[in-house]
């Protein structure tokens, strides 16, 4: 039998306002196992904790029940108190008589009655508690960052700055991500390349950082502090260690007409290419789908012109396995394809473009050298129509677009409109919007400048149809404020396409057993209090893979993710949660139900030899729990049909005892 002390907290009037705390401590004093019961104004205060410590010594308590707020609030506090007085911290139970009792009841009688019942249940459980000791696991002091956009770059730099080695895995031939494709950045209008490329160079030069470009993560095993990750280095047919990035091959390759993805297909590149001048690593890559030499063995020009001898047509994909203590997901976003939005004639006219294409058109390194020219005829456009929310906030058409707000479009459209009017005062610029959403430091001022100083015509309403007629785009729209139909003959229409997580995110989430929402954005451990951690221990989130974000927010989150990684890698040992699943091997039938429901991949099966009563041995398949991976969610205990799986600290018998106490 335990010797239990009960401590009822008033929480000022939070609890005492609707619960008669005196009556609760009196009633619980009579429960089996209870040797001491009291109440106090603030149990969590130093004085309150001293009451607990003194009682432990005086009454030789072996179990503690604190009737107070939610265990999320102060369970850790009272466990520490118990531990400092020499009791195993897992002998402490919290009866939540605040959130689940005093706050929801108005009547003192019912509140008091319920508080007593909740206390009784906690006492019944403590009677069956056993001391638990968390395990320790070592930490591999290296981090993996998946994705080499601004989010991945910033996270890697910050982790490396703290002295830990970091690897970046980027699926494209260069790091830089979407930001490398942008022209100017809001709200200060500094050029994206000017602020990004120095960071890319820092990454390349940092001794602590390795870049695996043109590579993908293919397998992840292990758990927090001890991940084993397989990285596929796709064959680039150019030896990275030898290539000097001189670019001679990219000028001589006879395959000239391949759409250039960096400029979103608005110009062409060769079959051997360097995505852009400031690429990191600055090495060439052969596109195997278009290279004649790789397709039919006829060419070899690049190999002839390469003075460094870096071309290797026989290169194969390489796989390497590395160990990491922490993984940061920074897989970013993409604009959604416009093929389901034919009302805007994107597929019918070259002069209907997306905002990212517009960025390239405005960029000095873009297909037009920074001159705003119509893609169809190279003429200077005079009337431009920007359409916001194309596919965003699309509740009625979820099969086409996204229900959420893509967040960045209002600001970058204001930027585009402003820059157009600034560079080309002979233009008329219209912006159609549902709402203009510009919260953020200096954001609304920025939008207002577009309207007031630059004379951009903002019209509340959506565009219904864009029809190419001759060399004009006939835009039909509605003005919701003036309640009238509008017809504009435009030269260029720019669609602010909704953004969605990169397609690589979902398979990666499966590998990491990290959870995602219905839109394939990674879910954070807590939407407010743990925004950069995945619920899966050791996996962290950086940038737009977690939700739409602009650059300032992405950088802030990237730094936050890095600090969490540093906090983890600083530790030599990790203390686990001892409340983990534990199978009774004698009862386990090896059915795999628990393995199937485990969201963390913590359960495996082994063939184990058992001695039978008749002294023979028998091999049986039984479940095995990796305690470092198990998060103690309890799914397996419910799924186990033979009742073999139990959760330490929440055993079936403890739960039943609580239920019995409540129903008594």
């Amino acid at each position, binding site marked *: 039998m335990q010797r239990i002390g009960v401590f009822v907290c008033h929480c000022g009037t939070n609890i005492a306002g609707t619960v008669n705390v005196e009556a609760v401590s009196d009633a619980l004093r009579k429960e089996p196992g209870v040797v001491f019961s009291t109440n106090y104004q603030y149990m969590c205060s130093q004085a309150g904790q001293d009451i607990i410590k003194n009682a432990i010594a005086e009454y030789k308590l072996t179990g503690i029940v604190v009737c107070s707020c939610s265990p999320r609030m102060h369970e850790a506090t009272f466990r520490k108190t118990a531990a400092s007085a020499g009791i195993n911290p897992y002998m402490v139970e919290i009866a939540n008589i605040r959130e689940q009792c005093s706050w929801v009841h108005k009547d003192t009688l019912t509140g008091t009655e319920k508080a007593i019942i909740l206390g009784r249940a906690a006492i019944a459980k403590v009677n069956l508690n056993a001391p638990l000791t968390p395990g320790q696991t070592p930490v591999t002091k290296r981090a993996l960052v998946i994705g080499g956009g601004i989010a991945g770059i910033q996270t890697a730099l910050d982790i490396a700055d703290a002295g830990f080695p970091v690897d970046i895995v980027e699926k494209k031939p260069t790091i830089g991500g979407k930001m490398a494709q942008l022209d100017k950045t809001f709200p200060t209008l500094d050029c994206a390349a000017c602020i990004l490329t120095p960071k890319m160079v820092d990454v390349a030069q940092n001794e602590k950082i390795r870049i695996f470009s043109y590579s993908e993560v293919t397998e992840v095993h292990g758990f927090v502090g001890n991940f084993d990750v397989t990285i596929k280095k796709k064959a680039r047919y150019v030896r990275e260690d030898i290539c000097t990035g001189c670019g001679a091959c990219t000028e001589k390759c006879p395959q000239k007409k391949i759409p250039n993805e960096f400029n979103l297909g608005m110009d062409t590149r060769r079959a051997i290419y360097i995505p852009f001048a400031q690429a990191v690593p600055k090495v060439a890559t052969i596109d195997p789908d278009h290279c004649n030499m790789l397709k039919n063995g006829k060419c070899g020009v690049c190999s002839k012109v390469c003075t460094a001898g870096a071309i290797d047509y026989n290169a194969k994909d390489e796989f390497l396995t590395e160990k990491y203590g922490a993984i940061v997901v920074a897989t970013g976003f993409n604009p959604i394809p416009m093929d*389901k*939005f*034919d009302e805007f004639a994107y597929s019918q006219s070259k002069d209907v473009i997306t905002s990212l294409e517009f960025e390239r058109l405005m960029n000095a390194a873009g297909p037009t050298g920074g001159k705003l020219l119509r893609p169809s005829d190279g003429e200077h456009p005079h009337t431009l129509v920007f359409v916001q929310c194309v596919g965003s906030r699309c509740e009625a058409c979820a099969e086409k677009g996204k229900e959420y707000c893509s967040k960045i479009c209002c600001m970058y459209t204001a930027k585009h409109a402003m820059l157009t009017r600034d560079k080309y005062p002979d233009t008329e610029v219209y912006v159609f919007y549902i709402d203009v959403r510009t919260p953020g430091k200096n954001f609304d001022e920025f939008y207002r400048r577009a309207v007031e100083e630059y004379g951009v015509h903002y019209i509340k309403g959506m565009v219904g*149809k864009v029809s190419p007629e001759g060399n004009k785009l*006939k835009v039909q729209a509605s003005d919701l404020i003036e309640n009238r139909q509008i017809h504009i003959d435009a030269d260029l229409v720019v669609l602010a396409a909704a953004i969605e997580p990169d397609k690589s995110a979902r398979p990666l989430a499966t590998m990491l057993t990290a959870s995602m929402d219905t839109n394939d954005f990674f879910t954070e451990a807590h939407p407010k209090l743990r925004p950069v951690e995945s619920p899966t221990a050791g996996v962290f989130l950086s940038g737009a893979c977690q939700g739409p974000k602009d650059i300032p927010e992405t950088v802030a989150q990237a730094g936050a993710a890095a600090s969490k990684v540093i906090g983890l890698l600083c530790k030599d040992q990790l203390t686990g949660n001892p409340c983990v699943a534990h199978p009774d091997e004698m009862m386990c039938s090896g059915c795999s139900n628990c393995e199937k429901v485990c969201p963390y991949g913590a359960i495996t099966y082994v063939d184990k030899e058992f001695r039978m009563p008749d002294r023979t041995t028998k091999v049986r398949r039984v479940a095995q729990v990796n305690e470092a991976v198990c998060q103690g969610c309890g799914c397996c205990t419910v799924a186990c049909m033979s009742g073999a799986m139990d959760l330490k600290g929440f055993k079936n018998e403890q739960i039943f005892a609580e239920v019995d106490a409540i129903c008594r």
Partner: protein
Amino acid sequence: MKVSYYPGCTLRNKAKDLDFYARECAKVLGFELEEVEDWQCCGGAFTSSSDEIATKLSSVRALKAAKEAGQPLVTVCSACHNVIKRTNAAMKDPAFAAKVNAYMKQDKDFTEDYNGETEVCHYLEYLRDKVGFDEVAKKVVNPLTGRKIAAYYGCLLLRPGKVMAMDDPENPVILEDFIRALGAEPVVYPARNECCGGYMAIENADAAKKRSLSVSESAANHGAAELVTACPLCRYNLVKSGSELPVLYFTELLAEALGVKEANA
């Protein structure tokens, strides 16, 4: 191959050509249209009625007859197709079907509940999916070579896109593919899925005229010499608007290409 056929009221009056050539061409293409016995109005004229059940009954009777015959129900008129297809979709909702079936039980020949089992298929869809435009092309004896024809979809054939599920409502291709199969050159123009003015023709003829003219002008600007449609109301509005382009039903065009028209001249 026999299919159930629902002509609808307009095909008995204003749009006799649409009906006649549909039947005759089917014979050439190797399928037979069996007219649903005692069919009633599709309900298209009741769309503004406040009783949501009563408006569906006549469509459901045709659908039920096709189910009992074990055949898909083929329609030609865009409006009938729209009403019948949407009614059929609504009948897949058990709560709604229960109400309609409760009415239907009062019919003398009622046998069993109808729950949206029939496949509703527009004549064009039937050509594309069952016969195949390639097969249609093979049967063409008078290829319409050199003719520039603009397909006019209107609204009822394609929308609501999810229910009608015939083609992309914003960028459809079915009529263009059909025109191509007959040897002519389809003209793609932006107004091909805009509204013709519809029933506005009754209340505000000028508004309808404006809409229809914008359609035919858009087609003409893109080089079309004629317009083809599946909808009697669209054709009425286009012709009434004084469009300079001739407006044909798609079955007329088909009959021309298959040699059916000259055989029946």
